[in-house]
């Protein structure tokens, strides 16, 4: 079994290059802020960022100037309000213009599925009667050969790199994820390279004890990064809660570009890595995010010898 463990710094240095398309997925849960911050720190430029819900992490990355283009389906600070930095880039070109390519959620999921399964398109019953196809020529229709009726399709999406945060993996990247699984599996299979970031590295035997829980096989994983609390201020089910205080603070900070610059200086450029970020955040704050236990009922696979 190949040991694919790398530090976040090395994983980003090796796999994320200027001009690439990068997907850091995770629907509200398991959003890999640690990877986003490292991309900012390494001053990548002209990236195409891909994510259904850009969330705070892309607001920060776009404010930091790493991206030229955004492929997405919903721009929001979930439960709070707008993504102010992205709005500033779109409405005012600050710090630089940002091209948008937008879909509905299921359209993005469908693009990942088509990309992952080498299909030329993914059909879905969305977009009829909407203006979305008018502003996005990649949303097309095909004729159903059974009824003759038109149906919308979206093309495959194959990001150069996908970065997936999860609860646990073994050193070769066999990865298990629970709670909200979003489109983590689909984007991982669709991408050309995959970096898996986990709360815990576990023995291969742990993975093999529950093979139905394995969402991403090591077969397609290029790097495994062990980064506890790597999804803060989002969360990892069973490990920590969302740090909602930060989501509210960001709404205030992000209203002003200079404040964002100062925040990036302090919390991203000003710390060498995630460990330093967590130390700066303080153990007490992290401890407050820990949930009480809620174990899954046991399951037995049976030994067949």
């Amino acid at each position, binding site marked *: 079994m190949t040991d694919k463990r790398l530090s976040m710094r090395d994983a980003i240095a090796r796999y994320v290059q200027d001009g690439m398309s990068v997907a850091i997925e995770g629907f509200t849960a398991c959003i890999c802020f640690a990877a986003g911050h490292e991309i900012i720190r390494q001053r990548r430029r002209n990236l195409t960022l891909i994510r259904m819900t850009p969330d705070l992490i892309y607001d920060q990355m776009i404010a930091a100037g790493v991206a030229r283009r955004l492929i997405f389906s*919903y721009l929001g600070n979930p439960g709070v309000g707008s993504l102010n930095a992205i709005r500033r880039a*779109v409405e005012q070109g600050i710090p630089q213009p940002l091209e948008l390519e*937008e879909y509905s959620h*299921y359209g993005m999921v469908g693009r990942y*599925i088509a990309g992952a399964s080498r299909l030329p398109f993914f059909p879905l*019953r969305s977009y009829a*009667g909407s203006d979305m196809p008018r502003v996005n020529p990649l949303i097309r229709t095909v004729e159903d050969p059974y009824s003759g009726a038109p149906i919308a399709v979206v093309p495959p999406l194959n990001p150069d790199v996908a970065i997936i945060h999860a609860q646990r993996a073994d050193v070769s990247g066999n990865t298990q994820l*629970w709670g909200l699984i979003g489109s983590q599996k689909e984007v991982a299979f669709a991408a050309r390279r995959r970096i898996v970031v986990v709360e815990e590295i576990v023995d291969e035997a742990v993975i093999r004890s529950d093979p139905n829980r394995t969402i991403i096989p090591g077969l397609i994983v290029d790097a495994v990064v062990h980064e506890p609390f790597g999804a803060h201020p989002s969360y990892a089910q069973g490990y920590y809660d969302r740090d909602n205080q930060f989501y509210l603070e960001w709404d205030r900070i992000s209203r002003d570009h200079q404040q964002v610059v100062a925040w990036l200086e302090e919390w991203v450029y000003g710390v060498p890595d995630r460990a330093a970020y967590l130390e700066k955040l303080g153990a007490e704050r992290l401890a407050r995010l820990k*949930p009480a236990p809620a174990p899954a009922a046991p399951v037995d696979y049976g030994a067949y010898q």
Partner: protein
Amino acid sequence: MSYTAAEMMIVAAARALAGARTVFVGVGLPNIACNLARRTIAPDLELIYEAGVYGARPARLPLSIGDPTLVTGATAVMSQADLFGLYLQGGLVDVALLGGAQIDRFGNLNTTVIGDYAHPKVRLPGSGGACEIAANARRTFIIMRLTRRAFVERLDFITSPGHLDGGDSRQRLGLPGAGPDLVVTDMALFDFASPDREMQLIAAHPGVTIEQVREAVGWNLRLADHVTETPPPTPDELRVVREELDPEGIYR
């Protein structure tokens, strides 16, 4: 017993969920409305969250659509491929609650831009799942505050289809769901029951006049044959909202 406009909206939306088996819901006010319905007139109602959760039993008020409290103790948690493909597009959503920055007389919604798409005055969040929810849910309820800026003659952008140009234009396009059924606002309720599917006032909330409603709508509003007064929240409804669902009064 006094109550806020938000409480009136929550209660009115909850009552309309009678008979529904499943509801596709976001956080905030719609979330409270659905949970109120479960505790009152629709005890078997199951909540489906866009994040991929069916049958949530949140131990606290969820702060976002993907709050971990929605996952723990839920009946089923699934990928978004399954959520959108099997549950929503598969036809298992009875009612979905939607909102928007702009709505027109046929219940079409804009959540994309104010102004020109290429050079927007305000860049809004975009579709999220709204475009497919509007297409696939059996019925949709729209919940938004009634203002002239929101209830407009012409949308800047159609994100999510309602009754399109009215009449049977929605069916002709082959949309699986029946479209908007009810609009719940802070001043009044509207439906689309007429054959041409144009929004019509069916009830004004207590203390609101028909004239005030007309004033807040950006087109020549049609009235239903019998415009009634919305029954105010009952003490029991208010108790559930205030003591159980939103004890900190976040959405009051």
